[in-house]
């Protein structure tokens, strides 16, 4: 829940996009950049960055560690390195054996039934096929999303109150 309240400006998003393109064309594997308060790490797929955060699997719900695209909560157009065209591209890479719960529709993701309430599920929570794991809202219509399988929540991949696309990965479940 601790996404810093520093929405990127469109100009910043464009600058980051250019940096990514430059990196792609170069022979470097990764690039770390600090611009005032903004810290960006951009890396090729599969590259391990010395001293960087490990992929988030245990702390939830959390922002994934700086992938090649700006945070999914940013409402600004954020097209970078082709990643924005793949729903769920910003979620951390899945562990083998985990099953995705994807959004059945485009809308706003809510992890809890109402503000201040406990989330429907957190990492480690057991779920049945009909357990509600979150709400997705479009035009004031709240749609409960069921887990669709029995197991334990292994990852929470979407941030509360942000836009999720059709087909975007919301949770990953370790099947029972």
């Amino acid at each position, binding site marked *: 829940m601790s996404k810093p309240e520093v929405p990127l400006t469109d100009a910043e998003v464009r600058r980051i996009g250019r940096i990514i393109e430059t990196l792609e064309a170069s022979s470097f594997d990764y690039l770390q950049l600090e611009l005032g308060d903004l810290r960006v790490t951009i890396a090729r797929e599969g590259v391990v960055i010395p001293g960087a955060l490990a992929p988030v699997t245990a702390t939830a719900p959390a922002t994934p560690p700086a992938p090649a695209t700006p945070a999914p909560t940013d*409402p600004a*157009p954020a097209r970078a390195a082709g990643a924005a065209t793949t729903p769920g591209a910003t979620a951390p890479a899945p562990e083998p054996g985990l099953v995705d719960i994807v959004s059945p*529709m*485009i809308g706003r993701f809510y992890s809890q039934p109402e503000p201040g309430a406990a989330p429907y599920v957190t990492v480690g929570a057991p779920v049945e096929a009909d357990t509600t794991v979150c709400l997705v809202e*479009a*035009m004031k219509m709240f749609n409960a999303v069921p887990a669709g399988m029995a197991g334990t929540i292994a990852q929470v991949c979407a941030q509360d109150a*942000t*836009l999720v*696309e059709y087909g975007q990965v919301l949770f990953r479940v370790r099947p029972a």
Partner: protein
Amino acid sequence: MIRRVLVANRGEIAVRVIHACQALGCETVLAASEADIDSLAARMADRTVCIGPPASALSYLRVDALLAAATGTGCDALHPGYGFLSESETLAAACAREAVVFIGPTPEQIRRMGNKLQARALAREAGVPMLPGSEKVADATEAARIAEGIGYPVLLKAAAGGGGRGMKVVGSAGEMPQQFAAASAEARNAFDDDTLYLERYIANARHVEVQVLGDAHGALVHLGERDCSLQRRHQKVVEESPAPALPETTRHALRRSAVALARELAYCNAGTVEFIVDGDSGDYFFLEMNTRIQVEHPVTELVCGIDLVQEQLRVAAGERLRYGQDEVLLRGHAIECRINAEVPAEGFRPSPGRITVWQPPSGPNIRLDTHCHEGYVVPIHYDSMIAKLIVYGHDREEALLRMRSTLARFRIEGIGTTLPFLRHAMAHPDFAAGRVNTALVARMIEEMKAGAPLAA
């Protein structure tokens, strides 16, 4: 000014709208179904969001999905393109509720023109000539009685209609019961409304429409007319501007009528008033008004030099038109051919699949509006139009010559296309002479099948 636009459509019109946004410095977010997530428009847009599965009923026709996409990405406006929800009062009203500018007319204007019977009443008030016809007819008996007064043949039409669905020609009183039943069933299926009305049927009919453009401050201009008589099963195939071989008195009267109707509505944004012109008498009659940008808008753009989609954005943002009627200059001639992924030799059956060769012609005064490229897979889920080829010339003869040579140079492989038919149509002596009517395409197809050489 508008800052960020949700492009709520696909195909070539999504590309077209993104071009207009780019020219005006607006950012774009494309609302794409799963099938279009890697489309050309998706690559051009600043951001793409997936709004649903390929079936349009679950994506492009979902008002809630489009509004969630618009508000969730911080868009302050939405362009609906054509087709899908472009003439949906519901979408326009939902945008207004969410403080998203709908790039089109007001919900009220969409509603008043959407119902064909209401539109006819309004046109009558504006003094626009109407085809002799009826109000709503209850059943076949009443229809037959009214038809006696109008004189056979008559045309049965759906009040909610469009695209030729729910439309039947009735040649005599004996055919009425059967055709009435067929038309109302079609109308019920297509529009969930089986209300029918009657019109006199014109045998030598031309389809001529006038482009209008209004702002929110009461200014309104026309941008000339387009002839769209070349139609196959009520779908336009070739369009041109200005309309050829039209008496000048008819041309000016048409334009005046279109402006009068749009004024009656205080119409804001781009719209098209469609007329049927009796090719024998020169009389013209109101058909309907389309409250959206149309597929064939490029021919108008080429003869008036005004970018219609950019104008849509400007007036939607509250800007005033920057020119009066006197400053609109129409010059030259433009022709558009719609290229579809269909096989003309096999009854125009749809031909989706991968485009293996895509070599479009280019050169001065040639414009190609398309979302296709080599390697693109034409999906099975949507309509078959893959490109619009538009050419300009200083007169019709020059434009037609250019269209013929341009079509001859266009190479598309991997899928079937309507290029062979279009080449045939553009070489047809009746088209060259401007002897066009809504039955000409059917005749061209018959002649092509028979393999008859075209007379010079």
